[in-house]
């Protein structure tokens, strides 16, 4: 009986904790992202490199922002179950969304704090961090990297 309890009770307990704490973390993160985006509103960050004719470029440097993020245990289980059936893995969407926005924010904030006025040619890259669990098939986290060329306008 104890073995059964450990096998079922413990994961369910962890799932519940993961669900409540994970949901809270996610909610707070989205609020934080929105506030910071609000603060950066008006700072140009674009994915092309052509500049408006009236921009006179001063200094130039590469800037980047990155984040490694992971899904909570509850959502990971849900994603795993969804994987059995197929279809849209909805629980992963908020994770990737907030990670991309976080990475972009970090890049833009870094550019702004260094005195730049815009970031052009922004690129986003996603990579999976393999976990040693399950023969390296497990995912320890997902890294999103945002980088671009920061410009100061004179």
């Amino acid at each position: 009986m104890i073995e059964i309890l450990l096998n079922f009770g413990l994961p369910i307990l962890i799932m519940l904790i993961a669900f409540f704490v994970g949901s809270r973390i996610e909610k707070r993160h989205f609020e934080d992202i929105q506030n910071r985006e609000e603060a950066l509103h008006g700072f140009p960050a674009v994915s092309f490199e052509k500049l408006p004719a009236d921009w006179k470029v001063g200094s130039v440097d590469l800037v980047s922002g990155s984040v490694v993020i992971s899904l909570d245990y509850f959502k990971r289980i849900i994603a795993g179950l969804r994987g059995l059936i197929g279809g849209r893995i909805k629980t992963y969407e908020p994770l990737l969304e907030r990670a991309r926005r976080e990475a972009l924010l970090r890049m833009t904030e870094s550019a702004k704090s260094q005195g730049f006025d815009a970031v052009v040619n922004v690129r986003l890259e996603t990579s999976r961090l393999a976990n040693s669990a399950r023969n390296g098939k497990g995912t320890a986290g997902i890294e999103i990297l945002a980088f671009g060329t920061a410009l100061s306008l004179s």
Partner: protein
Amino acid sequence: MSVGSSQSVILSNTESIPGRQIVEFYGVVTGNTVRAKHVGRDIMAGLKNIVGGELKGYTELLQDSRKEATDRMIEQAHSMGANAVVNVRFATSSISQGAAELFAYGTAVRIA
């Protein structure tokens, strides 16, 4: 985070440096580093994995590693007499369990 600017080499992921003229170009420069996860960080990340959210240990680890790769690329460019690297790209690949290669490359140029 600033990836470049530590030395007198300007980095850009655009094809040219905005507002400047490329006068000479020398070829592709690369920088890489292969890093394994830190045991201590791994344990913390494992715990953080339960509730989800950012794994700060890993974020920093990858940032440091990418900085190292970039520095090596800059060193190559510097050794070629370049003062800028344009069209910089980054790549990450999992090599084995818990180890990742971080790779940076671009074209070394001299700008005026």
